[in-house]
């Protein structure tokens, strides 16, 4: 074995070679390679959808890889389930907090290894050992507190404490700071450094470059499910990392139509909502597509929901066609000519159990059923029109939306709104999770909509989409507008820089 010839200190604790994983034909990981070393923090960097979360789930046994090899201390392993991962010394602090709100801190810490006396749980010992671990971590809450009363940051610390109940060889922090304040993040890093100094190998997943440079010793960059580079953080600049993250070999084709810009349709002035977004201002004109880019949690969806009346702003103004308007409910927004295609197509966009005709009719009942009586024929007619206009692949208006592919579901959601002839279409991740062909069909539809003298506001986390479809690009980070680029001056690098604060 080649690894045996190298000095002992250079042998990685955990080594992944050509790990592959696909879900229903979609490659989440194509060629993942990663080395983690004892006493070092490795930062895993990549765009949304680069395969980072899939990798974490493979390492903690939630998913099984389709191929490739995982070595722990040079021995080939297969992580069967989360319990097995824990026994192997691989611990994960998950992005979404996985604690039990109804159980106490002590029980949360020991949930998979409760100390026992014979057949029974030794509560006093559990409490004592939990208090000991919490003291090590230098935190103030008591082991008897129900976890539901903790802040998000404290819940993360409970998850780290869980790792300390056993010999943790590898600790994975999956975007632990996404919802944390600076001070809370600093606390977390203090604990992470302490574990690193104790010889633990840490994998730190984050989008925030300041944190990566502050904490990590090494980096590994993933793009589209494959490793594209790794090395030491020292001597590496953020531009270099960003280039690796976003660089694409194949330029995707975007069917953006030439438009002429007309009057201003929507203007937002200093719109704020506590804990969500702050002092957001922008405007969008006839024929224009405004792209809004940011990382997950930047406040973009919250902004869109506020514009559409799903929440009310604390301060600021919304102007439609130059007139200030008050939007207190989605009905108000619709009356002002706004339409919103939400991010979660299956939960918020379409009613999957309804046929296409009923879905399209939903927003148009006032015209379809003026006296409150629905007409199957008129619904069906309208659906027919939009099925052919948008090229929805379906057997007919009576087919259930749930039976369609993701791309065609999204077309039905678009049809539902376009049938009302709105002036401003707000799209939230309009092509998330749909295939390339359907993507460009959705882009063609929205671009044609803009060309007819309407405006599009498109929230997206996909850089090629943002760069390919937008006339102007607004970048948000932590609830604030950080940059506004014209189509000509926008590049992947300057957008990501503004979004990450690198």
């Amino acid at each position, binding site marked *: 074995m080649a690894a045996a010839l190298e000095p002992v200190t250079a042998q990685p604790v955990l080594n992944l070679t050509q790990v592959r994983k696909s879900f229903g034909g979609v490659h989440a990981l194509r060629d993942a390679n990663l080395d983690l070393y004892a006493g070092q923090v490795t930062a895993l960097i990549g765009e949304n959808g680069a395969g980072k979360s899939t990798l974490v789930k493979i390492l903690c046994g939630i998913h099984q890889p389709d191929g490739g090899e995982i070595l722990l201390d040079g021995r080939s392993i297969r992580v069967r389930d989360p319990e097995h991962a824990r026994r192997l010394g691989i611990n994960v602090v998950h992005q979404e907090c*996985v604690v039990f*709100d*109804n*159980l106490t801190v002590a029980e949360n810490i020991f949930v*998979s290894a409760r100390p026992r006396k014979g*057949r029974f749980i030794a509560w006093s010992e559990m409490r004592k050992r939990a208090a000991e671990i919490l003291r090590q971590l230098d935190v103030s809450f008591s082991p*008897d507190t*129900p976890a539901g009363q903790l802040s998000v940051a404290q819940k993360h610390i409970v998850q780290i404490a869980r790792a300390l109940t056993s010999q943790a060889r590898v600790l994975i922090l999956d975007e632990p700071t996404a*919802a944390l304040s600076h001070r809370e993040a600093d606390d977390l890093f203090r604990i992470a450094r302490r574990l690193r100094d104790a010889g633990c190998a840490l994998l730190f997943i984050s989008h925030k470059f300041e944190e990566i440079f502050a904490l990590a010793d090494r980096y590994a960059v993933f793009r589209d499910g494959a490793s594209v580079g790794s090395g030491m953080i020292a001597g590496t600049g953020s531009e270099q990392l960003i280039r690796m993250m976003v660089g694409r070999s194949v330029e995707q084709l975007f069917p953006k139509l030439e438009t002429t810009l007309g009057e201003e349709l929507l203007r937002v002035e200093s719109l704020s909502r506590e804990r969500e977004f702050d002092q957001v201002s922008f405007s969008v004109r006839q024929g224009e597509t405004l792209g809004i880019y940011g990382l997950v949690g930047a406040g973009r969806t*919250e902004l869109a929901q506020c514009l559409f009346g799903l929440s009310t702003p604390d301060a600021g103004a919304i102007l439609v066609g130059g007139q200030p308007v008050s939007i207190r409910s989605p009905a108000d927004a619709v009356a002002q000519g706004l339409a919103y295609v939400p991010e979660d197509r299956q939960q918020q966009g379409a009613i999957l159990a309804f046929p296409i005709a009923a879905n399209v009719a939903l927003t148009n009942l006032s015209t379809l059923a003026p006296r409150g009586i629905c007409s199957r024929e008129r619904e069906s007619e309208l659906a027919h029109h939009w099925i052919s206009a948008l090229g929805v692949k379906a057997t007919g208006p009576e087919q259930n939306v749930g039976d369609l592919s993701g791309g065609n579901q999204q077309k039905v959601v678009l049809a539902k709104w376009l049938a009302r002839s709105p002036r401003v279409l707000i799209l939230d991740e309009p092509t998330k999770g749909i295939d390339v062909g359907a993507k460009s069909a959705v882009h063609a539809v929205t671009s044609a909509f803009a060309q007819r003298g309407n405006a599009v506001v498109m929230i997206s986390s996909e850089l090629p989409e943002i760069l390919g479809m937008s006339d102007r690009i607004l970048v948000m980070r932590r609830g604030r507008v950080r940059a506004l680029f014209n189509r000509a001056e926008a590049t992947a690098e300057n957008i990501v820089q503004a979004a990450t604060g690198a």
Partner: protein
Amino acid sequence: MHMIQNSAARRDLALGVIVVALLGAVTAAFPQFARPVNLAEILDDSAILILLALGQMIVILTRGIDLSIAANLALSGMLVALFNKNYPEAGVLPVLLIAIASGAFLGAINGLLVWRFKLPPIVVTLGTMSVYRGLIYLLSGGTWVNDNQMSPSFLDFVRHQVLGLTTLSWLAIAGIALAALLMRYTVTGRDLYAAGGNPAAASYTGIDPGRMQCLAYTVCGAIAGLCGYLWVARFAVAYTDIALGFELQVIAACLIGGVAIAGGVGTVAGVVLGCLFIGIIRNALPLIGVSPFWQMGINGLVIVIAAVLSARRREDKRAILETSPA
């Protein structure tokens, strides 16, 4: 107690105070109500409800519900009644074993359907509820098993008194003790809470929530089976419609006792108090000259009031803005 800051413990305490106050109020008006003999009678009267509610609690904790619990009881009860009719000399031990095994089997069917086929618990148990009731008819041909067809040992077992309490009451007490021990001091019990409280987190920590649900249904079924024998022996009759609709009273007892229908929350003490609450009201109403038919209304009112009191709007706090400047 360390657990007192836990809201479940606080609720148990409040319900305990209410139950004692209720007992005190009725006793003030009717001193004979608190006589040990009468209290023992209330316990005897509530014993089956307590056992069933403990089983139902375990199921609800794991985000399930067992609507078939009374049908399971009736089918298992009919099975042992027929067994006793045909083999009167076999004694009580085989009867107990058959009742528990039959109940556990019927419960496991629920559990496997919920676990393996990922079916909604309410649908599965609504279906098996009808199937189990139908099977009683097939088994008995629609005929009754009356007390003259039951052996004396079969009938006397539940009535036998030790220290002033019936075997039935002692079984309930033993059930409470076992359930308390299981839910608080065993890994299985704690895993049941975890699986129901946050199934996603449970699977991330290596607990299979589906498996825990299946286990809960099996345990609940075994209890229902045992109660099948207890019911048939206590009322000295078995027929197709025994305990018809009793599942709703069992669920009501759980809800009054503070078991959250959304799973993860509920205590043995709370459930027992919920059952005693129902038992005291049921026994007190005739005394104060109110028709026992008010019982359902009072139960319902208590459930709704408890739900309103515990419904606290939780602000969804989405922290995105930096709280301290960079």
